[in-house]
């Protein structure tokens, strides 16, 4: 009866722990290989290529897909980001305010705009705003509308990010600033917010990636030919050529921007981790 004496020793019958580990890993590889093979064997590659990868159709998209569509996507994204950042900053400060109604209002804003699909916001901005304020034109036409819609959506997320960043700055920083004679507002602007932004640079860049994709919702505002961005551009061309290649090309254009951006975010996160250590 040796196994009662040393319960941690491997028992003689059945697989050893090492064998179990090898078997488990072997099964995982086998499942993966089977899935890849099944996908490759069942997909109709010829038709897929015919529908999605026609070189001549792809070629006729250039240079417009870059000079017009990608340019507009970037423009929409950046303008939405700027509006969202400014508005998000105001809401974050309201959320941290000592005045109750400000905190309350900021909380309501954040809950509403985080809870609604971005698509609905675009429709509201396109339809409801002109109805509610007749005669007022959102400056900048479509560009203004997109900046507003994307800004309204992203402000809710950015406000929470900025608030977290401000609260992550150690309390001693505000105390040191106040003890030097900074007013609360001056201390916030010169000391706290610059440090908060270093902390939240990675999540803010992530927000930029999300906005980049959400800019495709411009589709629902109705745009002129000159205002088309990647998704609309790709879809229009796909329907005129009765082929999906433009969709693939548009998708690749998104990745052209989002993958490097994600890479930058990961780099910043690693660096921030190292800075803490």
């Amino acid at each position, binding site marked *: 009866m040796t196994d009662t004496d040393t319960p941690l020793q491997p028992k003689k019958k059945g697989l050893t722990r090492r064998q179990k580990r090898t078997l488990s890993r072997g099964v995982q590889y086998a499942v993966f290989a089977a899935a890849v093979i099944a996908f490759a064997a069942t997909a109709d590659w010829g038709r897929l290529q015919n529908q999605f990868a026609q070189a001549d159709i792809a070629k006729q998209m250039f240079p417009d897909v870059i000079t017009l569509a990608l340019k507009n996507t970037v423009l929409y994204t950046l303008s939405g980001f700027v509006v969202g950042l400014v508005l998000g900053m105001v809401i974050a400060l309201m959320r941290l305010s000592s005045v109750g109604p400000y905190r309350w209002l900021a909380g309501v804003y954040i809950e509403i705009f985080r809870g609604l699909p971005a698509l609905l916001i675009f429709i509201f901005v396109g339809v409801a705003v002109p109805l509610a304020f007749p005669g007022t034109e959102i400056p900048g036409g479509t560009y203004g509308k997109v900046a507003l819609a994307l800004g309204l959506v992203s402000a809710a997320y950015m406000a929470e990010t900025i608030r977290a960043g401000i609260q992550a700055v150690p309390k*001693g920083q505000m105390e*040191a600033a106040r003890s*030097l*004679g900074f007013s609360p507002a*001056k201390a916030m602007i*010169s000391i706290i917010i*610059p440090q908060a932004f*270093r902390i939240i640079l990675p999540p803010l860049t992530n927000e930029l990636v999300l906005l980049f994709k959400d800019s495709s919702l411009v589709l629902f505002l109705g745009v002129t030919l000159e205002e088309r961005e990647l998704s609309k551009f790709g879809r229009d061309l796909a329907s005129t050529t009765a082929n999906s290649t433009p969709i693939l090309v548009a998708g690749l254009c998104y990745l052209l921007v989002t993958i490097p951006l994600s890479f930058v975010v990961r780099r910043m996160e690693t660096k921030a981790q190292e*800075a803490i250590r």
Partner: protein
Amino acid sequence: MSRPEIEVRGLHKSFGDNEVLRGIDLEIRQGEVVCVIGPSGSGKSTLLRCVNLLEEPTKGQVFVGGTEVTDPDVDIDAVRRRIGMVFQQFNLFPHLSVTENLTLPQRRVLRRDKATAARTAAENLARVGLAEKADAYPASLSGGQQQRVAIARALAMGPEVMLFDEPTSALDPELVGDVLAVMRMLAREGMTMMVVTHEMTFAREVADRVVFMDGGVIVEDGSPDQVIGAPRHERTRHFLSRLLDPAMADVEEETSDQVGKSEA
């Protein structure tokens, strides 16, 4: 005798139900160096923080340079410009270089021009012996160097009073000396200083007066030789014996009337 530089009258401070200060009266004359000692939770840091209103007193008055700090209508930012403060955790601004740590407050708060601020910064860095670190960032400095920069930053504002909140408690033992040397220099130059500290040697050699606090009240107040050398009160003796020879202390029963374990 001229009016005291710092005057505390009937000061009370509570955090919720926890009464940390229970009636403090204290006067510090111009040029005087007063060390405040006492066990942790005795309220000494809170007292210091009430002097520049980082903590709002519950009751009582504080005057600095004749201005009532506790007056609700006082321009507290203006008062604080005259009171330099040094923290246990240094609290340098990590996103700014050493020089910028000194120049930014001068420019934003005192509205000094760039050249004046830079000159004042250089002078004060030289005073604390860190002129060669002017372009370094706080993270690259040792704790002792950071604390000396923090002192220089406070001095650059031209304060009339300096408050020190356990300035050497977060330092490695071999770095304490440099910071104390700077403080000794300030004391010799006639700066009015209120120092919360556990450095008994410093208190003995540099302080004009030592104040012993326990349980939110001042238990003993007198010359260093008297308070540290020949304490009159049992509580002071007990505290000093534990501080000066911690290896010999006995295990103690926690008493329920101990106040404010959560000293800030």
